[in-house]
């Protein structure tokens, strides 16, 4: 994973709450077996709507998304994160994220930062006053800035560390392999095994 410290890119105001995973990546795009190339999945149902924010020239090259509350609700599909990432987004901000989405984002190097409802509104207004303006995401200082406006964001401390260092999760866990093996040796014998298979 690439290290993330400070990033500046086109800010996009998405004035909508409850942006769910079926909007971020509709089921029809889930049939693919690859982990890249999901840019066409992102907001597929809205991409033909000229009013939709990403269809406005100033926001087309969006890389920092400022969205309403309860972002990423619904399914566990990591495709929702892949779609944002493949479109070009490096960070998304909301006053509330669905837990699984936020976890998935952290695995893919997409910053999912929590900001207050008031700061969301302030950022929206700042962006809409200068469509196409960039937002600077500073993961070290935990701030997102648009023009002269700078607001703090929250992110899980461990995820932040992993993103700053660009660390692979599985590699980190396997450093504990001895502990895993010891734990396995103590598991009770009544715990079920899937093998050998027993049918109904």
């Amino acid at each position: 994973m690439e290290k993330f410290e400070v990033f500046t890119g086109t800010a996009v105001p998405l004035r909508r709450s409850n942006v769910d995973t079926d909007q971020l990546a509709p089921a029809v795009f889930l049939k693919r077996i690859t982990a890249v190339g999901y840019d066409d999945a992102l907001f597929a149902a809205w991409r033909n709507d000229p009013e939709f924010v990403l269809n406005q020239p100033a926001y087309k090259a969006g890389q920092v998304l400022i969205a309403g509350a309860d972002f990423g609700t619904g399914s566990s599909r990591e495709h929702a994160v892949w779609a944002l990432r493949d479109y070009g987004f490096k960070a998304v901000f909301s006053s509330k994220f669905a837990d699984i989405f936020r976890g998935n984002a952290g695995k893919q190097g997409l910053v999912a930062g929590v900001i207050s409802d008031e700061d969301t509104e302030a950022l929206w207004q700042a962006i809409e006053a200068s469509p196409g303006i960039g937002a600077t995401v500073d993961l070290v200082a935990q701030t997102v800035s648009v023009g002269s406006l700078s607001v703090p964001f929250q992110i899980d401390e461990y995820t932040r560390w992993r993103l700053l260092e660009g660390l692979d999760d599985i590699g980190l866990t396997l450093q504990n392999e001895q502990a895993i093996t010891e734990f396995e040796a103590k598991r009770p014998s009544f715990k079920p095994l899937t093998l050998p298979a027993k049918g109904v």
Partner: protein
Amino acid sequence: MSNKPLTLAEKVWNDHVVVKGENNAPDLIYIDLHLVHEVTSPQAFDGLRLAGRPVRRPDLTIATEDHNTPTLNIDKPIADATSRAQIEALRKNAAEFGIRLHSLGDKDQGIVHVVGPQLGLTQPGMTVVCGDSHTSTHGAFGSLAMGIGTSEVEHVLATQTLSLKPFKTMAINVEGALRPGVTAKDIILAVIAKIGTGGGQGYVLEYRGSAIRALSMEGRMTICNMSIEAGARAGMVAPDETTFAFVKGRPHAPTGADWDAAVEYWKTLPTDEGAVFDAEVNIDANTLDPFVTWGTNPAQGVSLLDVVPSPEDFTDPNERQAAESALKYMDLKPGTKMKDIAVNTVFVGSCTNGRIEDLRAAASIVQGRKKADGITMLVVPGSAKVRLQAEAEGLDKIFTEFGAEWRFAGCSMCLGMNPDQLAPGERSASTSNRNFEGRQGKGSRTHLVSPVVAAATAVRGTLSSPADLEPVHPLTTGIATLGEN
């Protein structure tokens, strides 16, 4: 430390800590059971191959084909090339990594969350994960069961663990007795409407109280299943005699001395007297009506006796704006009686309501009655085994005589990855779990309902409860005996 009263969730968590996180680091949690399906796993297996890593515990892993599978003509090659490729990828990965797979056509195939409990692989006090948000279903057994993304699927395949931050706990107290025609589905829809789609965020919910204790395992699974729709990471019900009776004798249930040891352990799991939850919510079961959704997120629900709300009814600006766009998408006018909303399609199935008890409940309503003109009704068992069981009980005949379509098992119209989809603008009464825009097909409009409301809706053509139906001629009844397990 041992004297501090603990909640069910805390006990299960503590029993699975491999490495305690220090300095804000998450705990490393052991995973007892990993369920795999075709949609969220191919990229995880690719990751293993790239890194040259094996699956650490194939014997704690099981796969099934469910999301993409057709519910008709399952003896023929899958028509959709991309669906077929995804299924084939799972078969190849399962063979290569030594994972047990129940393929389409196998009698143990079905929706992953129906198959696990059915095989007795889901038991109290376990940690269960799957690359599917409705993994919360398994919490009905007193397991800590969570949906995970594909990166975490790869992590579990490689390490049989997950790095997790401890959750907060929330008690959902449901006291009282449900009235006739009111079900587990109505409880959970009411809970979600009360706390919102983000209300459970960061929490593990524990459903408690006399109404929960009185539910069957199927009902408890329906409730835990939709914990994710309240934003919770998991939902749980303390194991009791109902749980033990459900598990006992299943293919992978413990036997002999292991059974005794297991039950002894399971009895230690319920939340201790005096344990403190981080939050509590109370629901009165006595006054609950059948619940239905009117909008495009699962918290946008009301009593079936109510009307479509107006955006002005919401003081929270987010909720008001969400209501405005939902009403537009759903093509509904504020003040319309919910019971006046006509649907095109009725869907009975999914990991929420595709178990045998759900099919029995729906069948008991449609038996001896006639389907409303122009309504399509799909009945999709949650698993091949549920289908067989239903056929043994004659439920398939009741459905087909009513005019419903009797299908093979899978996720089907819940998410419309297979050909079972609504056409643009079509409206459904659906026993599934999500009413998102486009969820059941592009432009589809979904009303989430219980199986008995779905069945009554198929009779009248508008959203209805069994209480709205004319009595059936006495000679045509006889379904009462079908309610027994």
